[in-house]
């Protein structure tokens, strides 16, 4: 898997004045192999927009994004996405939600059970197959969303602040679970978060973005051993480094 983002720009027009607001400015990034890449940046810097561009839900004004050499045009099952508010289909049971990608692809109903059973087990929801989303807690819903994304067998999974609406304990648990799930299902993950600690805990790579318009400020590879200890000296040192980058004012963008 190779994701290549080259020189993309994105502007939005603001409604009242018709002025163009520049969200992303000449951003390039390459992601290769099954690694977990965390994008951190100040609030409203355009990191979610970047994710939506990779997903194909929006188009860049210029520049292009390629997956394995193929320029993307629009959303596709090879780029799965996980949303902060879970975005589960409320009329479908856990089982049916996870099956969605297979159903879309035309896999006959009798052949879907094997894949989904394995994934539902992997995310720790065995026994909850026939529940509906409103009967589950936030953490459980996000597990369903992860299983649903994995079932479509994407090349890369884009996660947009997936644990931001969970309380801190559930959030810790979900971070841990995500790493465990990824050990089984080797996938490329692009993980957007505004939490430096989350990025340092999860990431094989941590990419720091500038304030709007977003550009890449720093790109680190983390070789801290796992499981990572947030009290470990190197962990703290690295957190401090990234926090320092975020707090330092950005050079004025051209």
């Amino acid at each position, binding site marked *: 898997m190779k994701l290549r983002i080259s020189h993309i720009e994105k502007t939005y027009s603001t409604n009242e004045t018709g002025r163009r607001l520049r969200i992303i400015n000449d951003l390039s990034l390459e992601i290769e192999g099954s690694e977990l890449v965390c994008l951190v940046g100040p*609030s409203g810097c355009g990191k*979610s927009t970047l994710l939506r561009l990779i*997903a*194909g*839900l929006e188009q860049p004004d210029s520049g292009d994004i390629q997956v394995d050499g193929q320029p993307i045009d*629009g*959303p*596709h*099952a090879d*780029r*799965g*996405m996980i*949303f*902060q*508010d879970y*975005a*589960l*289909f*409320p*009329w479908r049971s856990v089982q049916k939600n996870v099956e*969605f*990608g297979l*159903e*879309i*692809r035309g896999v006959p109903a009798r052949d879907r059970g094997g894949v989904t059973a394995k994934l539902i087990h992997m995310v720790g929801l065995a026994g909850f197959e026939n529940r*509906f989303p*409103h009967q589950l807690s936030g953490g459980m819903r996000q597990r369903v*969303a992860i299983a*649903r*994304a994995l079932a*479509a067998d994407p090349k890369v999974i*884009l996660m947009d*602040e997936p644990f*931001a*609406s969970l309380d*801190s*304990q559930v959030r*810790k648990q979900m971070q841990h679970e995500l790493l465990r799930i990824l050990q089984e299902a080797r996938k490329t993950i692009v993980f957007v978060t*505004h*939490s*430096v*600690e*989350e990025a340092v805990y999860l990431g094989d790579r941590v990419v720091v973005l500038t304030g709007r318009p977003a550009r890449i400020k720093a790109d680190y590879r983390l070789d801290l051993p796992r499981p990572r200890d*947030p*009290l470990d000296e190197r962990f703290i040192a690295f957190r401090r480094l990234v*926090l320092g980058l*975020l707090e330092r004012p950005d050079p004025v963008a051209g």
Partner: protein
Amino acid sequence: MLDQTPFTTAEPAPKAPATPTLPPRVWPIGSPVGALTVIWQRASRNGEARFIRSLLSVIGFTLFWQLASNTGVFGIFPVDAMNLFLPSPLTVARTFKELFTQSQYLSHILTSLYRVMFGFSLAAVIGVTAGVLIVSSKVAEDILQPFIRLLQPIPGVAWVPLAIVWFGLGDRAAIFIITVGALWPTLLATIQGLREVDHNLVNAALTLGATRRQIFEKVTVPSIVPHLVTGFRLSMGFGWRAVLAAEMVGVSSGLGYMLTLGRGVGRTDITLATMVSIGCIMLITDAFIFGTLDRKTSNWRPKREERRKANDEIAN
């Protein structure tokens, strides 16, 4: 700010023990009143008390009605006139028995039912189609909007004279009036439902590989079902009101006709029995059919608070 460190991860506060909220016992348990109080409290806890209360209310009302009818509303009117002014519940019950043995009563019911179902189905098809058109095309919206604005406030009854001129006194006039009367709730519910389809669900389906057509079938349609249930429910009610009006004014068959017939021949008991029949039929369709559908699909709507919460957090 940024994030909690492990140090600040607080234990959740222990929940306060649930305190039972029983009303204080005023009467000693040994006394009959005390015993009744205990029974009542048990019933309250099981939710039966509310049902019992409603049942007692209906029984009480029926007894009061019977008494009022037998005494000429407590001596205000001559008792002889009561058969015309206020037939007693017993008389109405007897009339029901009499009506059930006549095929005419059933045929009037079936006539009205047929008209409502026919008109309602037409209204549903037209309402949903027009709603889809309006939401999917700005041109269609601009063309149809003025007529919707203008016609929607006109109650179905107001179409009766015109319908009779156009279609004569019969099924077709009744069905026309029902259709026009029942159209609006379905139309407006369709428009609102389509406009409220959760964009996140559409995006999720897109990133799972769904085509436009699949999104329509698997996201849009189920999303608007709860809205349609509400719309159909209201449309059905509007349809009944319209058919009764039509049948009372000119179309000489159906339950509305029976209402005026009872008055015309001095048989107020028939009018009352018909009113009870109408109430029962509407209650059955509303509570049992639409009520059940509503409960089944109520969780299909996105929770408003949840969406707001998510939006707040994105904004922060």
